[in-house]
């Protein structure tokens, strides 16, 4: 049961971080990073299964493979940006968290531009 592992890990890590936060805040930050990474590594196998399923679904529905790749990339980047900005926010550095989010948004936008262009082409084609 993966869920038991993840929940137990989260609770134990929370208790340890609360203990450490008063005396050594820097260790609390490191501990929260490690907890996040380990929980993610625990769910990676399941995530692989999900992505593979969606990929096969999209190929069955005859969606262009490059569009699907773009969407998966955007999901990954969103996850990474969220991870980093949450850590910064936990450590009390809200401004850094904002900048990380800004960078993530801009890069996602760049990734999304080809889809946007394709949409434009479609609209222009449909227009008389």
């Amino acid at each position: 049961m993966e869920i038991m592992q993840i929940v137990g890990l989260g609770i134990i890590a929370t208790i340890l971080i609360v203990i450490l936060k008063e005396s050594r805040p820097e260790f609390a930050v490191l501990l929260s990073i490690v907890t996040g990474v380990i929980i993610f590594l625990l769910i990676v196998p399941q995530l692989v299964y999900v992505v593979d399923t969606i990929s096969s679904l999209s190929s069955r529905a005859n969606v262009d493979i490059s569009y699907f790749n773009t969407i998966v990339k955007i999901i990954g980047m969103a996850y990474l940006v969220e991870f980093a900005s949450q850590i910064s926010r936990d450590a009390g550095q809200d401004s850094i968290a904002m900048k990380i989010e800004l960078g993530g948004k801009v890069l996602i936008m760049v990734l999304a531009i080809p889809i946007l262009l394709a949409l434009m082409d479609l609209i222009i084609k449909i227009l008389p």
Partner: protein
Amino acid sequence: MDVDLIFKIAGIGMVAAILHMVLEKSGKQEYAYLTTLVGVIIVLGVVINLVSQLFSDIKVLFRLY
């Protein structure tokens, strides 16, 4: 797997906290900060390895090349 890493890091943190307390009480502030720094660096070395593993996993999983 590496779940015990959490306990290891928490243990190092607590040891560093106690060390800091003991050294500060006997008037050796400079060593107290030094020990904290060393502890943070040791833990950082472990954490960076783990984070790089995370990044490579995400790269493969979400096809971010």
